[in-house]
């Protein structure tokens, strides 16, 4: 009880901080310097229709690299954690699971390719439309999830997933480094021509990067899901 | 033999073990020797005069007669007039007054004290008991004849003799000293074995060195 009271008091304090933040907040009427720069220069410099994508992949590409790394890390660590657990439990006989229903099986057969396709679409078009590598990757992973739901015993190749993941990551970095050599700096997208705004093959290497990000994210999520499911299965 | 006088094996701080024989290691073993008088007769005469006029008594009351010595310090008798005074330590005393009967237990202490006095040293037997045992002639626990154990220079008879008798005794003692006849210390050294044999006859638990330096 006392603990709750203390927590409430503290939260009142934090709330007061938030409150004064809120009270001190005045929405901007026009874009600030940075945003204005992006709005005005993105099309011309980067060639990406989706300014957010341009920011994510190029202007703040280092952040994105970090993001990708976060996922990579998480996947690795989850693998590490769960691998340890599995080693201990590998002796135990595998649990028998009830069959998943026919509806699910049929549905997944039907949906999985569609979902994969959607995922690829989303990340390939990341520089044009809302969406991008992360969203696409997540969609890809959801296909894997569906497959796992259908057949929890299904075996995925860890090796494949990790190679995919690594290669995508390596390519991302390589492109970044190529930016230093052939363009203005690390992760500069202009090693390829920026093309014309709104085209699929435009915005330099953004689509390529985003694709690999998509693959990588998909692989990482999948890896986590697979690891979790295998652990659960044991 | 008492425990503390037995030989024992001791381990030194460095771990080295060795034997300790208390009687040898803690006590001087040399027997008493005869101390000659001064080479010059005249010097010895002067010395004897000085010795006689400065009699320092060992403050050790061995028996009931001790009570007769106290009045000597009082204004009534004032033995200090005669150069007599009491010393608390045998080292500094010249005269040992065996004051009355001497139990064998006390004898042991008396011998020790006597041997620790320096030559020349004198013994006065006070009271009949020191002469022949007196009324305790048949006691199992007192010695009968003091002279068998310590060389007595002078007896003062009586049971007990009064302080006046003691004063007279001192005067007598002075005469003996002046005459150069008070050589009890040397007598003791000469007949050391005889005295020891006598002493050991009555003292059965002889737990001390032969001679207490």
């Amino acid at each position: 009880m006392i603990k709750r009271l203390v927590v409430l008091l503290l939260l009142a304090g934090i709330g007061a901080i938030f409150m004064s933040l809120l009270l001190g907040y005045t929405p901007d009427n026009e874009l600030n310097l940075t945003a204005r720069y992006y709005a005005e220069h993105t099309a011309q410099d980067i060639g990406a229709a989706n300014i957010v994508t341009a920011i994510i992949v190029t202007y703040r590409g280092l952040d994105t690299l970090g993001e990708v790394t976060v996922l990579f890390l998480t996947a690795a660590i989850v693998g590490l954690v769960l691998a340890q657990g599995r080693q201990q439990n590998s002796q135990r006989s595998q649990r028998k699971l009830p069959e998943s229903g026919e509806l699910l099986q049929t549905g997944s057969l039907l949906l999985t390719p569609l979902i994969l396709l959607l995922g690829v679409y989303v990340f390939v078009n990341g520089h044009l439309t809302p969406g991008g590598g992360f969203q696409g990757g997540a969609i890809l992973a959801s296909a894997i999830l569906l497959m796992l739901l259908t057949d929890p015993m299904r075996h995925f190749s860890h090796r494949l997933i990790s190679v995919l993941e690594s290669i995508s990551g390596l390519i991302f970095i390589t492109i970044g480094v190529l930016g230093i050599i052939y363009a203005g700096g690390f992760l500069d997208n202009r090693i390829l021509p920026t093309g014309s705004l709104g085209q699929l093959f435009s915005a330099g290497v953004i689509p390529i990067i985003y694709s690999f990000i998509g693959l990588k994210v998909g692989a990482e999520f999948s890896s986590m899901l697979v690891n979790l499911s295998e652990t659960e299965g044991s | 033999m008492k425990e503390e006088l037995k030989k024992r094996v001791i381990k030194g701080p460095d771990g080295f073990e060795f034997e300790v024989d208390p009687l040898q290691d803690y006590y001087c073993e040399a027997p008493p020797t005869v101390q000659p008088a001064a080479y010059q007769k005249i010097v010895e005469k002067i010395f004897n005069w000085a010795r006689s006029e400065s009699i320092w008594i060992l403050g050790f009351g061995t028996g009931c007669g001790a009570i007769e010595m106290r009045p000597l310090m009082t204004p009534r008798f004032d033995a200090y007039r005669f150069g007599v005074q009491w010393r608390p330590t045998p080292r500094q005393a010249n005269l040992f007054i065996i004051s009355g009967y001497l139990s064998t237990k006390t004898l042991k202490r008396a011998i020790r004290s006597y041997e620790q006095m320096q030559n020349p040293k004198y013994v006065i037997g006070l009271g009949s008991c020191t002469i022949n045992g007196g009324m305790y002639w048949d006691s199992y626990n007192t010695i009968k004849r003091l002279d068998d154990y310590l060389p007595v220079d002078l007896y003062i008879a009586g049971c007990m003799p009064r302080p006046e008798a003691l004063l007279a005794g001192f005067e007598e003692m002075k005469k003996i000293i002046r005459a150069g006849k008070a050589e009890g210390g040397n007598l003791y050294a000469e007949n050391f074995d005889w005295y020891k044999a006598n002493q050991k006859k009555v003292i059965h638990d002889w737990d001390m060195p032969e001679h207490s330096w």
Partner: protein
Amino acid sequence: MEFEWIKIPYSLLTLFIVINFGLLLTALIQKIGARVGRRHGIPIYQNYIDLIKNYAIRSSITHGFMFYLGPVFRLSGGVGLLLFVPTIYGSEMFSNLSFAGDLILALYFVFFGALGMALGAGESGHPHAAIGVSRGLSQMTAAELPFALAVFSVALQYQTLSVTDIVAAQQGGVLNWTLFTNPFAVTAAMFSFLGSMMRPPFDVVLAPQEIPIGPPTEYHSSYLALMQTNRVIFPVAKIVIYMNLFFGGAASWPVFFLKVFLIYMVSVFVGVAFPRFRVEQSIRWFLIWAMPLGILAIVLV
């Protein structure tokens, strides 16, 4: 002041006079004490006889090196103390060996004999000797304090540490004595004097039966004779310092004899009237009664 060879015979003369005077004085004092007890006491020449007798003892023992040296230290201490202080004021003859050092030398040389004696007594291995030393040293440290304060006060008063100069400053009438010019210092010093004379109430060091006469319990024959000799020199030497510092010194031997006797009598007066203090009692007594006087003397000078 410079050394001259003639000082040696003069010093020996002083020594001779003081030994004889001391032998008689101590006997006299003992006799006075006896008279208080309505006794006759010892003959006045008894000390001489005792001394000769002790040298005449034929045998002696020794406990070792330091035991042997103890009385030597003791007597050297006494003789040295006497000779480091000018005995007769204004007399070149009897200023002795005071060229070697001033008052401070005398003050610290007091310990020389005490230390040697304590060491010798210690080597006798006798626990009573050690107990006596322990008591003696304990009491001495407390007793020395008021004296040191008084000496400091006097030195401050006359702005010199030279004994001769201090005596010189007291010349010209009784009222010039430190006794009257600086009474607190003198009182403090005299309290201290009581403590250093080994007389009641401060003689528990020598408790004759409890710890048979304390430190010298193992000493005898010629050792004892040396100590007896010291026993007559040392108090006189000490009183000479008191006399010079506080009572105007002495310009001639008769005055010297008189003053020494009178100062000595102070301790006799107290001694015959009071019972013994235990050591811790005497320490407290010195700190409570004598020390404040000394402090007063220092503050007021």
